[in-house]
């Protein structure tokens, strides 16, 4: 008789299905990082002097920093000179519309299931797609601009909306924030920019897909999203990469700003290549994401489903500056095989009656190591602040690990802070119960894990919740044994 272990071992041979490479002509600069490289990137992108100045300051600051090593992650030192810092698909000519995008590229995005072509208008999602370092196309731009919404690549924003970029870029995550934020500020090549004007409710989901294609290329994108007074927006990013033996670096920065009564919902489905079963290859994902609730009653909600990457280091946080502002963090992080994740959030309560909610679900399988690291800080003036944190870990098999590092810093005695944590092991009993009802092992594991993550999935926009569940099931295959 086949045991559950045997069966799951068979399933372990499932390949990462987004692991294809697109054969496309690229403009890639030589490996290495120096002031000349930073200047070259800025030159290639035709940037104004103020942008080059920002990059150079960041680069010089970066040189004074050392890579942080406090996370519960184990990986060899990264050689920052051994990567390309700029790679762009060579356009056949200047792109005027989507019809002129390289068909190879469109085919790639088709494989990824991204509704890039105008025909897919019905999907109702506006997409900005970033391929290696360059934003390729933004759909629905006209429709959005009727509402006064700006949604474009970061490069275009630097050209077309320099005042907005200069005003807000680096105001939430300054280049001095940390090692990876400084690196990103120096060498970032593209990303997405979004501005929602006063009182406008964005009529559709906005979405960016990031794709690393070129070998030995680091990807450094930057996202800046500003929601002006009384506006609201829901934004989703997804990411994939080809399978490669070497590790690739990804260091992104995301800044969100919400003014009075504005609401931003930011969802991430992170599915970078996680490396193979033996832990070879995979993306090193070092990301700084932060939202500033600057206005009264502003609201920022982070939802993340992290299933990819060999190493994940990210702590999307909220600075709750405006009175009555609300910060939320809903996270599912799954580590299988040799994946490691150190992820969580920071909630900084500054304004009065600010509220934050943290729901973190960590799933460890195979030899995966999963850490929740979170900071809840209540500053002196944050009278009546409230936080509720719930950190649940699930273990699948007996070679993985789950860790929780909560930091709580309360400086106002009227605050209420609650922290709940649990660790469960997916039980033989649960699996047998499902099997006995005719449900096979793969479906049973998927069902139990999805049930565990339910509180987070229900925060995702409907169409992406289904995608997230499927992704989780695929990522779980081969998780026991």
């Amino acid at each position: 008789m086949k045991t559950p272990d045997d069966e799951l071992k068979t399933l372990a041979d499932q390949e990462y299905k987004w692991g294809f490479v697109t054969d496309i002509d690229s403009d890639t600069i030589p490996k290495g990082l120096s002031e000349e490289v930073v200047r070259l990137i800025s030159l290639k992108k035709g940037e104004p002097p103020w942008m080059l100045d920002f990059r150079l300051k960041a680069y010089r600051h970066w040189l004074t920093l050392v890579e942080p090593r406090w996370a519960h992650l184990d990986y060899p030192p990264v050689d920052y000179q051994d990567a390309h810092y700029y790679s762009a698909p060579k356009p056949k000519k200047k792109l005027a519309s989507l019809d002129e995008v390289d068909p190879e590229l469109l085919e790639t995005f088709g494989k990824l299931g991204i509704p890039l072509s105008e025909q897919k208008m019905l999907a109702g999602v506006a997409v900005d797609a970033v391929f290696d370092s360059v934003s390729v196309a933004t759909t629905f731009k006209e429709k959005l601009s009727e509402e006064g919404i700006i949604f474009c690549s970061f490069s275009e924003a630097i050209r077309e909306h320099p005042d907005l970029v200069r005003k807000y870029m680096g105001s939430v995550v300054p280049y001095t924030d940390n090692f990876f934020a400084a690196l990103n500020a120096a060498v970032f090549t593209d990303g997405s920019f979004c501005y929602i004007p006063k009182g406008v409710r964005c009529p559709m989901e906005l979405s960016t897909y990031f794709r690393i294609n070129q070998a030995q290329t680091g990807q450094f994108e930057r996202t800046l999203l500003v929601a002006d007074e009384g506006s609201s927006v829901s934004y989703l990013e997804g990411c994939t990469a080809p399978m490669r033996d070497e590790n690739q670096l990804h260091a992104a920065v995301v800044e969100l700003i919400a003014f009075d009564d504005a609401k931003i919902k930011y969802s991430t489905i992170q599915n970078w290549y996680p490396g193979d079963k033996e832990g070879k290859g995979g993306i090193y994902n070092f990301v700084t994401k932060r939202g500033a609730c600057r206005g009264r009653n502003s609201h920022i909600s982070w939802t993340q489903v992290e299933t990819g990457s060999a190493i994940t280091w990210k702590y999307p946080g909220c600075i709750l500056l405006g009175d009555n502002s609300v910060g939320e963090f809903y996270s599912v992080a799954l580590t299988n095989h040799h994946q490691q994740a150190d992820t969580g959030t920071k909630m900084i309560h500054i304004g009065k009656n600010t509220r934050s909610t943290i729901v973190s679900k960590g799933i460890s399988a195979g030899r995966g190591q999963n850490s929740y690291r979170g900071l809840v800080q209540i500053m002196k003036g944050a009278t009546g602040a409230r936080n509720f944190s719930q950190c649940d870990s699930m273990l699948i098999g007996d070679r993985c690990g789950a860790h929780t590092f909560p930091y709580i810093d309360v400086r106002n005695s009227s605050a209420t802070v609650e922290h709940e944590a649990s660790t469960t092991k997916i039980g033989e009993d649960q699996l047998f119960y499902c099997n006995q009802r005719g449900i096979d092992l793969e479906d049973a594991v998927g069902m139990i894990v999805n049930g565990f993550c339910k509180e987070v999935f229900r925060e995702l926009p409907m169409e992406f919740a289904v995608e997230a569940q499927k992704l989780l099931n695929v990522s779980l295959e081969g998780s026991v044994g």
Partner: protein
Amino acid sequence: MLNIKNLKVRIEGKEILKGIDLSIEAGEVHAIMGPNGSGKSTLANVLAGRAEYEITGGEILFEGKDLTVLAPEERAREGIFLAFQYPVEIPGVSTSYFLKTALNSIREHRGEVELDAFDFLALAKEKMKSLHMDEALLHRSVNEGFSGGEKKKNEVFQMAMLDPKLAILDETDSGLDIDALRIVADGVQQLRDEKRAILVVTHYQRLLDHIVPDVVHVLSGGRIVKSGDPDLAKKLEKEGYGWLLEESGAVAGGGN
């Protein structure tokens, strides 16, 4: 339907079942009684295919097929249902979703079309009604926060939905008050028909007042030491197992 011949089973190196012979035909209800640690639950779990039990001898034939080579889910799809002594909680998974997945995997195996959400719900509501159970159970997570009685009712409800050929009830009466016991027992009685075999594993006779079996077996020390009619169960209730064990010379052993 079910033929067990000289079945020997070990767990963690210890022999629990030491040669069981048992035959059950369609339409029959058999009860297995016996003192604690006699191997009753082991037998129920071995039939369902729980992995930690090692079969060291004998055979189990279900409708003429060797059951021991089948995985638990394959046995379930062939029509074997186990009502658990301790039903497991699955947080975040609604009972209706769980059961719809189960039912459709069994229907697929039988070559029947999958039920869609509407047909499933209609069927579930009909079964709920006939079992006098509360529909709200469908929307709750599987067994999560259920009382002991609710868990056992849920087992009987699932049994009614999955329509097994062989239903095994493992101590389904344990932890039930009189009212819950009646609902559970009535539910099982409703499922009694000429096509289905039912194996009731119980420590006490009280369930057998409601579900009167055709045959009662007494399991002790890993062997069936006596088989008889329902009066045997009544005698055991009154006089305990002592006289029987002396008569048969069996030594109570094992443990589960």
